[in-house]
């Protein structure tokens, strides 16, 4: 048991390391201007993978159906943005409110330069997660007593409330009201001038570390307790698992990583604006979780990349009117991409209910495959 666990750990680490190196290599070898789409999709996929995994922790591993993910992402994104906008840019960003109420920037506070940048960004991301977790803790007090779909609708409502609060004019000097926060360090800030391009690598690294932590949690004694709650609440409680505490824990941790994911999202889209974090975004993430398989971390990751690539890249040709020879391909026009895409989603939901991975993980699958071939070989002999 221990041994296979160790083996799995090694496989996972190796895969992750290889992926990281591959991504860095790709980014530095391929012509960046020809392959922007690839890298943007990769970055977005990494961010969505993190957010999907954090949602999966809650929905798939603890059995709490929450739809507040976008709200927590918003908290993380704003915290990150507010703390990292350079001081001399603040007047330009908060131009409506004649400057910001907060006049420091973490990267500069930590000494500026590359070291300050790295430390400041990391600290701001973590703080963003902490803010999200703290708010989750507060909301969890009343809301987590609710059962499945009531919980879903209450968290959904919470997301809307958060959005309205952040758009409130009176908070303008902090949140910049309806205006976008921008000019903060993004993934591209990590590209070394004239040297290594690290932006995609940074996105993968940050998201990867967070996902690894979630994985560690899931495989710890707490993660097992979460799964017990998911499978049978009454039995879990009878076996000494404090429901309120563990649900809150799961909710806060999930929100923490959603917050970090929000910060990363802000880095991805170069701005933070409350109107981006809509319920539609939560639904998108939920669909990623479903497509990947509820209860599978690797499924969520794979699905995140597939989802982003399919919806924003591969299927884009469906949006443009195309002529093959003199023949106009029917149906192709704006909006068709999303129709096709939602049909695909419906097919997955209805006919491939377990998603790509079900509740298995990639190493299981690999181990299973190699096991099978070995058995086959044995049978052959």
């Amino acid at each position, binding site marked *: 048991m221990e041994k296979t666990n160790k083996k799995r750990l090694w496989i996972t680490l190796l895969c992750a390391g290889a992926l990281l190196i591959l991504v860095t290599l790709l980014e530095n070898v391929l012509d960046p201007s020809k392959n922007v789409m690839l890298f943007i999709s990769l970055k977005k996929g990494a961010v969505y993978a993190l957010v999907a995994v954090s949602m999966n922790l809650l929905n798939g591993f603890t059995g709490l159906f929450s739809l507040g993910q976008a709200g927590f992402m918003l908290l993380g994104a704003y915290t990150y943005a507010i703390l990292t906008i350079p001081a001399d840019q603040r007047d330009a960003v908060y131009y409506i409110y004649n400057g910001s109420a907060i006049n420091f920037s973490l990267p500069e506070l930590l000494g500026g330069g590359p070291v300050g940048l790295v430390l400041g960004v990391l600290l701001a991301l973590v703080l963003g997660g902490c803010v999200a977790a703290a708010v989750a803790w507060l909301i969890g007090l009343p809301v987590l007593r609710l059962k499945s779909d009531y919980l879903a609708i209450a968290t959904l409502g919470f997301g809307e409330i958060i959005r309205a609060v952040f758009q409130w004019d009176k908070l303008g000097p902090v949140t910049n009201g309806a205006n976008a926060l921008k000019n903060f360090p993004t993934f591209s800030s990590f590209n070394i001038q004239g040297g290594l391009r690290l932006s995609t690598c940074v996105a993968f690294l940050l998201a990867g570390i967070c996902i690894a932590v979630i994985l560690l949690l899931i495989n710890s004694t707490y993660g097992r307790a979460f799964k017990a709650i998911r499978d049978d609440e009454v039995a879990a409680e009878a076996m*000494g698992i*404090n429901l309120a505490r563990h649900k809150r824990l799961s909710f806060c941790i999930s929100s923490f990583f959603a917050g970090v994911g929000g910060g990363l999202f802000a880095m991805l889209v170069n701005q933070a604006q409350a109107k981006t974090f809509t319920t539609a975004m939560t639904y998108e993430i939920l669909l990623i979780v479903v497509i990947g398989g509820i209860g599978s971390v690797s499924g969520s990751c794979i699905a995140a990349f597939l989802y982003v690539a399919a919806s924003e890249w591969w299927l884009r040709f469906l949006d443009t009117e195309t002529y093959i020879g003199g023949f106009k391909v029917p149906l192709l026009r704006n909006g068709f991409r999303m129709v096709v895409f939602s049909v695909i989603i419906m097919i997955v939901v209805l006919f491939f209910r377990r998603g790509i991975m079900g509740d298995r993980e990639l190493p299981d699958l690999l181990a299973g495959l190699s096991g099978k071939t070995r058995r086959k070989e044995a049978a052959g002999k």
Partner: protein
Amino acid sequence: MSETVLKVENITMQFGGVVAVDNLNLEVNRGEIVALIGPNGAGKTTAFNVITGVYQPTNGAVWFQGEKIVENHPQGKMKALYKGEHAGEYTAVLAPTPDRVTRLGMARTFQNIRLWKSQTVFDNVLIAKHCRSTSNVFSASFRLNRKEETRQRENVEELLETVGLADVKNELATSLPYGKQRRLEIARALAAEPKLLLLDEPAAGMNPQETEELTAFIGEIRDRFQLTVFLIEHHMNLVMNISQRIYVLDFGRLIAHGTPAEIQNNKRVIDAYLGVSEDA
């Protein structure tokens, strides 16, 4: 030897107008195997649920190892409805959640087996160890509790060996045959390191041979883990063979109490089980 482990004191459980348990009093001493029997709907499981904190009783108290763990008096709507004895005797409210009761040293099984379905046999037992773990989320996630984790895993291996499920430990819990699922549920309860084991109809749905094995098994684990066992059962064979004392419940009221031999000859018990003419 005769130290009282569990004491149920004047417990009444009323759902609206229905009295499920009416002024129940009973005691279980250390090392004993005590049974609670009664016809269907007599309120046995309700009594269990009150003891383990699932329900809050309308009135009364529960003591465990000399400590009062549950206490309640009629409140709200019940104030007007409740006209039982001992009204006004209890004034404080003690309402621990079931998990707290379990951590105090009571573990239970369920009438309709409630295993964690997507988990393996091993994990089912291991999860029950969670309540005895001293690590916090941080130390657990970053594996700073390796020692404890290893010890727990060894414990679970041992436990599975003892209950005879070691050979199926990597199977899914739900793939086991019925009898083994029962055993697994008991093993899971044992993993929570209880002093008092509460078994809710452990032999339900078993054939005579399985029941016999179970009887022996319960005795075995009692001795091995120095447990006190309190069980609900229908199978008279099992009850008569292993219990030292028996309480009989009918329509929520205690109608008899004594050794198996006494109960077998108690007229009220026979009436309750067979039905008397006034019923007809």
